[in-house]
């Protein structure tokens, strides 16, 4: 997804506008007032698109609860299972409310190139008749559908972060971090990458867009906004909090890889909403994003299993599931731009790179990213974001980029080298912005109210001490 100019105004405004926009009237009107501003009408909304966006929103919600919660939960020890489930559930709830409060407005209204304004805080002016732009001239979806679709992205992104410091964080300080991080990091980055006036408006308002959108950075479904953003924040969190007690000296195997498998599989299914839904319309490009999401993931899961066969002599389920997630992450920014063939290559390459980071780089640098949020999401996101500049090239069967500054959008001339450089800039800006702010937030919260539980609590487990319950009573 990327996008958009929301058109506020109730029925009255829409009705007036419909008059002006109707072709029969327009002939007379055009002669008198040729510069009449474009106003979308209810006829520009397609029920198929609306349905697809609502289904996609539900699929993306499923990615966080229960998919991500189970994927992460299975990887921790029995004594911390509920803490991870609770953190993910609470973050989803908090993010949904913050999104309605000021998130949507800060991300998707016109402000400056770096952050939107507060004109739609608490969804002011949004109602069942207001519309949101898609990627096609004259095609709109109900604004509520767009708000809720984007809401699910704001829900899952901070939930991804908790994996990096799982098993050693206090609950309420984490919730505070999430509110601040969404406000200072996520909403501005979403604005920079995805906000623009919409295809029918960019011609008249060529500067009404986010900074990275304006630079031409391509991010179909959130490689930078979601995965690099969350991945680098996770790394900062695990650095500020320090390693778990017993890291590398005690045995800490995952407590249920069955849960992890269920979670990874549901993530894959939900990801069709994430990637194909990001097209905002139910059309051929949505289908393209769908098939790319399937084949890149398949290639990535197999690639990880093959590397393990070569390196360790056995292909593990955890390896294949991790590879699948790495592939999903990597195809995310490229899903609507690549061809199935290049998607397969991208998935496999991302899997190899993530394997190297998770098994080798992490050990060499000796940081305790509990569930490999950095190694899989940030690194997979970076590989995907850069590769998007390559696979989007029409010479390789890609979709290229669309010039929306024309009155009717048309394909632009593709320059692969220039596009890769633009992608690198977007990656760099996200890494620096999210990395620096996240580190400061973690540091300040840790020094003031404290982020890490006492050694005793950590040893006995967060479930009993932070939540007063245990996952399995038998």
């Amino acid at each position, binding site marked *: 997804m990327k996008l958009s100019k929301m058109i506020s105004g109730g029925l009255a405004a829409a009705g007036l506008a419909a008059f002006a926009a109707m072709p029969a009237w327009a002939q007379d009107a055009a002669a008198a007032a040729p510069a009449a501003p474009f106003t979308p009408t209810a006829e520009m909304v397609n029920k198929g698109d609306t349905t697809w966006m609502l289904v996609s929103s539900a699929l993306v919600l499923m990615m966080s609860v229960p998919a991500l919660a189970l994927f992460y939960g299975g990887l921790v020890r029995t004594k911390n299972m509920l803490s991870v489930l609770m953190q993910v559930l609470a973050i989803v709830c908090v993010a949904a409310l913050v999104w309605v409060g000021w998130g949507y407005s800060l991300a998707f209204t016109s402000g400056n190139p770096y952050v939107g304004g507060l004109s739609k805080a608490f969804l002011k002016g949004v109602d069942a008749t207001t519309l949101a732009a898609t990627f096609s001239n004259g095609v709109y979806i109900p604004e509520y559908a767009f708000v809720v679709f984007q809401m699910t992205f704001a829900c899952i992104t901070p939930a991804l972060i908790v994996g990096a410091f799982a098993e050693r964080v206090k609950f309420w300080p984490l919730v505070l971090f999430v509110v601040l991080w969404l406000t200072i990091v996520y909403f501005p980055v979403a604005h920079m990458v995805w906000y623009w006036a919409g295809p029918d408006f960019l011609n008249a308002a060529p500067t009404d867009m986010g900074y990275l959108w304006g630079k031409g950075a391509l991010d179909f479904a959130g490689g930078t906004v979601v995965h690099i953003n969350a991945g680098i924040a996770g790394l900062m969190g695990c650095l500020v909090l320090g390693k778990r007690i017993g890291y590398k000296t005690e045995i*800490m*195997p995952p407590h249920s890889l069955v849960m992890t498998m269920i979670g990874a599989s549901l993530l894959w299914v939900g990801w069709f909403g994430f990637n194909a839904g990001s097209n905002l319309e139910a059309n051929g490009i949505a289908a393209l994003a769908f098939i790319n999401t399937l084949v890149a993931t398949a290639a990535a899961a197999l690639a990880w299993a093959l590397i393990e066969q070569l390196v360790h002599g056995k292909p*593990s389920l*955890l*390896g294949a599931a*991790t590879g699948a997630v790495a592939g999903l992450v990597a195809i995310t920014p490229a899903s609507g731009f690549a061809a199935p063939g290049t998607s397969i290559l991208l998935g496999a390459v991302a899997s190899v790179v993530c394997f190297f980071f*998770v*098994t080798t780089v992490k050990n060499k640098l000796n940081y305790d990213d509990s569930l490999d949020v950095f190694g899989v999401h940030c690194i997979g996101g970076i590989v995907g974001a850069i590769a998007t500049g390559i696979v989007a090239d029409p010479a390789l069967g890609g979709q290229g980029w669309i010039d929306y500054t024309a009155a009717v959008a048309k394909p632009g001339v593709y320059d692969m080298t220039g596009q890769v450089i633009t992608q690198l800039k977007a990656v760099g800006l996200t890494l620096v912005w999210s990395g620096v702010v996240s580190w400061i937030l973690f540091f300040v919260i840790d020094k003031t109210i404290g982020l890490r539980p006492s050694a005793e609590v950590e040893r006995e487990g967060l479930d009993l001490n932070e939540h007063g319950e245990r996952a399995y009573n038998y």
Partner: protein
Amino acid sequence: MKMIVAIIKPFKLEEVRDALAGAGVQGMTVSEASGFGRQKGHTEIYRGAEYTTSFVPKLRLEVVTSDGEAAGVVETIQTAARTGAIGDGKIFVLDVSQVVRIRTGDADDDAL
């Protein structure tokens, strides 16, 4: 009276039980155990993190017999539990000084 304690491979339980029943043994106690002998543990790898488990899962059998039957029971277990590979387990024989059947109060050989 003798108590025969056998540590065996878990999948050998049914064969041992059938063999002992065939030899006239009236009862036994089985519990799950883990440990190591010459058969060391195994290695598990999770995303490259290697954990060596030094304890191998086993079953612990306890059979109490009269002095005269002990040698036969030991031989029966040894034959039934054997695979010939490392890790087949061990059999220990201990003296038992007293046995009481809780329901009737029968003592010693009568309680077996």
